[in-house]
């Protein structure tokens, strides 16, 4: 039985201003109806380009070559543009990453859906509309009929993605390609969308390709997996086999550098892959992973490496035999076992170094040009203590107010209610200078947190200059010292940010934050914008620096795995309020608040075959401008009581180190 989609030895060459670039080389895979193929890889791995090549959506001047590129009976390689256009939206459907911008803002949902059906089939408008309503209901959208006359901007991100899926199903495709379908969505919605895709696949018997950088997503959803690196498939096979017994050093390294909840020793370093993902403009002569591989041999540098068969459907691209790869604990910079000792060194009895007391921040927001300003409670009655040495993680999905809270604690945003105390003093009363010596910050986006017109040296030296610390020579010496400490070459001093990679830039940001020897560092999503293989490097660095310099961290993140790895205490926020606070271990082993439970359940670890957890949270994350009455979570909570609709619960203790705000738990409160 031949597979539905067959790709054999596909290569894609792009035409650039400075010459040609081979984005994808010798890629092969097959997918059949009812099967899910997961393609996983970091940025620059060529995964998106491969899928666009199948659809024929690459820009003019791109050359696609392959031994076979076939969908059913159709040879995609030799098909004319007209034939390809007949297949798109018809036999092959593609779902993109950004539901916000992938729908046309000036046309109604109904029109965008029906036009797709009427393009490929001659049906009446009424028939198309009926089918649209049908599909909208199938993807779980309520009030389907009324949605047809709505515009995209009136729907939330999760709903828009459902609309995209429904839209692409209008013509009963045989193959669905989903390129990062959940990356732009909140974690709790992610599980729902993935479940939806799987259910649809079963019902309609389609072939599904899921492309993602998130190993967890791919592991849970796929039947077979292809790991891509630098434009090639480096490992492929059934998902169980590949993930439980990876053969390629890159796959092994990836799996080791992902913090897996429940398996990490707190405080221990993660395995990481040194170096950077190579630019695809490089002309590769041999194994593309060789310069980062700790098992590199002479044989690796000799020439291009072909796929080797490892049996049971698994293949990998490496010169080493399965035997040599299986021995030894791991193939890469070994994860150091943690001694679990991060818990010590924290003096819970001393007065807090950073405090929020009933802090709140309400913005006045204008919605559109017609209405007057409405209040938006970004942060509502937050009380929080940070003690020296702690790593407190504040988690929550977008819109929960954690970034606003971070800005308030940093002194960049004035609270409209309550106080922020830094070392016992109100932040508002401290001068900029005093405040910045005590608390510093590392921001999320390494591409925008460094001034593109200043050199690395100037950037790191700037705090010293502003505070008048030492002479120029002394400042220079300090900069050199800290650059070395964070792992930056001294020669970078005169380079500009655009010449450094994301990981290197984040190190610069860390150096800048630490050069004044602050007590507290606020890390706002410090690794979210980085490739997975680099994330581990940065997290390890942060842990080391904390131990050496006696730092206290406030970590803002949505990534629960990172939290379990490095946090000592966790604060869970929902719509501007704290819903649960607990020591890390306790929170992960025994979450009590329904939202926390849902959040943890939604985290997708790379456990093959575990399936996607079904997290039924009903409607979308509420808009902070129109918060639900009483407990903000009640519309989505399966345990909601009558009182939840009326009265907002208060944060109370379940035990000395565990607080929660929930009416249901009140009877257990101390």
């Amino acid at each position, binding site marked *: 039985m031949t597979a539905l989609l067959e790709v054999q030895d596909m290569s894609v060459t792009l035409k650039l201003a400075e010459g040609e670039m081979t984005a994808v080389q010798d890629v092969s895979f097959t997918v059949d109806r009812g099967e899910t193929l997961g393609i996983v890889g970091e940025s620059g791995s060529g995964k998106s380009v491969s899928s666009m090549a199948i659809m024929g959506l690459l820009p003019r001047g791109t050359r696609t070559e392959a031994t076979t590129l076939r969908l059913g009976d159709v040879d995609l390689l030799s098909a004319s543009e007209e034939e390809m256009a007949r297949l798109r939206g018809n036999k092959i459907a593609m779902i993109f990453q950004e539901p916000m911008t992938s729908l046309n803002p000036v046309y109604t949902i109904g029109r965008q859906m029906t036009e797709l059906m009427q393009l490929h089939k001659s049906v009446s408008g009424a028939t198309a509309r009926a089918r649209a309503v049908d599909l909208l209901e199938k993807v779980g959208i309520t009030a389907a009929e009324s949605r047809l006359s709505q515009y995209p901007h009136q729907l939330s991100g999760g709903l828009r993605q459902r609309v995209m899926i429904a839209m692409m199903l209008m013509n009963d495709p045989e193959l669905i390609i989903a390129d990062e379908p959940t990356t732009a969505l909140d974690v709790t919605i992610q599980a729902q969308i993935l479940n939806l895709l799987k259910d649809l696949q079963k019902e309609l018997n389609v072939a599904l390709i899921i492309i993602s950088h998130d190993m967890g997503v791919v592991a849970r959803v796929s039947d077979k997996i292809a790991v891509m690196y630098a434009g090639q498939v480096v490992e492929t096979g059934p998902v169980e086999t590949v993930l439980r017994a990876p053969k390629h050093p890159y796959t092994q390294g990836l799996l080791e550098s992902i913090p897996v909840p429940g398996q990490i020793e707190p405080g221990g370093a993660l395995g990481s892959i040194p170096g950077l993902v190579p630019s695809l403009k490089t002309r590769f002569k041999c194994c593309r992973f060789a310069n980062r591989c700790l098992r590199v041999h002479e044989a690796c540098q000799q020439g291009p490496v072909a796929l080797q068969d490892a049996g049971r459907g698994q293949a990998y691209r490496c010169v080493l035999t399965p035997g040599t790869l299986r021995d030894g604990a791991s193939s890469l910079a070994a994860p150091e076992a943690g001694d679990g000792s991060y818990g010590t060194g924290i003096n819970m009895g001393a007065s807090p170094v950073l405090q929020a007391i009933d802090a709140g921040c309400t913005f006045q927001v204008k919605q559109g040009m017609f209405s007057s300003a409405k209040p938006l409670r970004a942060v509502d009655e937050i009380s929080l203590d940070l003690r020296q040495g702690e790593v407190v993680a504040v988690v929550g999905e977008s819109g929960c107010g954690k970034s606003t809270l971070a800005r308030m604690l940093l002194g960049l945003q004035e609270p409209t209610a309550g106080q922020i105390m830094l070392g016992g003093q109100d932040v508002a009363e401290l001068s900029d200078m005093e405040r910045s010596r005590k608390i510093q910050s590392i*921001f999320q986006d390494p591409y*925008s947190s460094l001034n593109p017109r200043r050199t690395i040296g100037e950037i790191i030296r700037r705090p010293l200059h502003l505070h008048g610390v030492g002479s120029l020579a002394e400042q220079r010496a300090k900069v050199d010292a800290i650059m070395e400490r964070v792992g930056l070459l001294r020669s970078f001093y005169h380079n500009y940010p655009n010449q450094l990679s994301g990981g290197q830039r984040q190190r610069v940001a860390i150096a800048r934050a630490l050069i004044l020897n602050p007590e507290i560092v606020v890390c706002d999503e410090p690794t979210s914008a980085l490739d997975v293989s680099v994330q*581990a490097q940065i997290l390890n660095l942060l842990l080391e620096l904390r131990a050496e310099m006696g730092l206290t961290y406030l970590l803002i993140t949505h990534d629960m795995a990172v939290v379990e790895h490095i946090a000592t205490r966790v604060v869970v926020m929902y719509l501007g309020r704290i819903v649960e606070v607990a020591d890390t271990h306790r929170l992960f082993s025994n979450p009590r608040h329904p939202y926390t439970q849902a959040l943890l359940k939604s985290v997708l670890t790379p456990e093959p075959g575990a399936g996607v957890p079904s997290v039924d949270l009903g409607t979308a994350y509420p808009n902070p401008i129109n918060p639900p009455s009483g407990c903000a979570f009640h519309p989505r909570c399966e345990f909601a009581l009558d009182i939840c609709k009326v009265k907002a619960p208060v944060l109370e203790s379940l035990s000395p180190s565990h607080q929660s705000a929930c009416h249901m738990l009140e009877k257990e409160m101390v």
Partner: protein
Amino acid sequence: MQTTANAVAQMADQIIDLTPKERLIRKAKSHLGFQFGAFIVVSFALIAIFAPLFAPHDPFVQDLTKRLVPPVWAEGSNWEYLLGTDHLGRDYLSRLIYGARVSMGVGFGAATLGCMIGVTIGLVAGYLGGRVDQAASFLLTCQLALPSLLLAMALVFFVGSSVITLIVVLGVLHWQYYMVVTRTLTRQIRALEYVSAARSIGSNDRQVLFYEILPNLLNQIIVVFSLEMAVVIIHEASLSFLGVGVQPPTASWGLMIAEAKTMMYFKPYLVVIPGAALFLLVLAVNLLGDGIRDITAPDSRN
């Protein structure tokens, strides 16, 4: 204590790209428009500054016995007057050369004045936002509504035409574009994380504006400057043509065209040449501005 990971990280790290300056130079080398524009503009500037050295005659000296001598390619010409003489016997080429002074002087001066006004308002409005921004936007709307050419004509004529008046009036009426660009950019940059970072390491507002934000604006401001300068040069020529700009006997290309209007059917070159000079200069300034925009445009990330 460094982990092996960090040590290996150092080894494997490489520089991926050129410094901003290197990139600029490389792009400039291959941008024809920029080179052409720069060449012409610099040449005109030199000619304007060193006019007495270039001009064969004094542009004001009249010789009524030698009126309307044709240029060298026509009959009855005189090699002493390469481009002939005008209706008052003044050397045409010299007047052309001195005309460059007026065009470049007024162009540069008015553009600078407009730049100072517009960039200041834009910076303040973009950085402070709120009411200040609303006030600045209101001011902008009013300025946009005014018919600037008409108003310039009236004001220059009423106050009394002179090069200084022209510079001031044209400068004060041409700050809108600077303000819009500066304001938009400042607002965008203000939202970037390195501004927040600057504040969290202790920079005050003034330091943020001048050390962090302004350097990122300079490229765009230069582009606007060149485009505005081109506009002002044309406006000055228009005003002088209509008789409300530079007054005789000063040489201005617009004025020269006006003076030639009565004779243009017979001696079209009198109209064509100064116009061609205007065209060339304005084209060069525009190409220069476009070239700077292209060269300094940020590359997309890898």
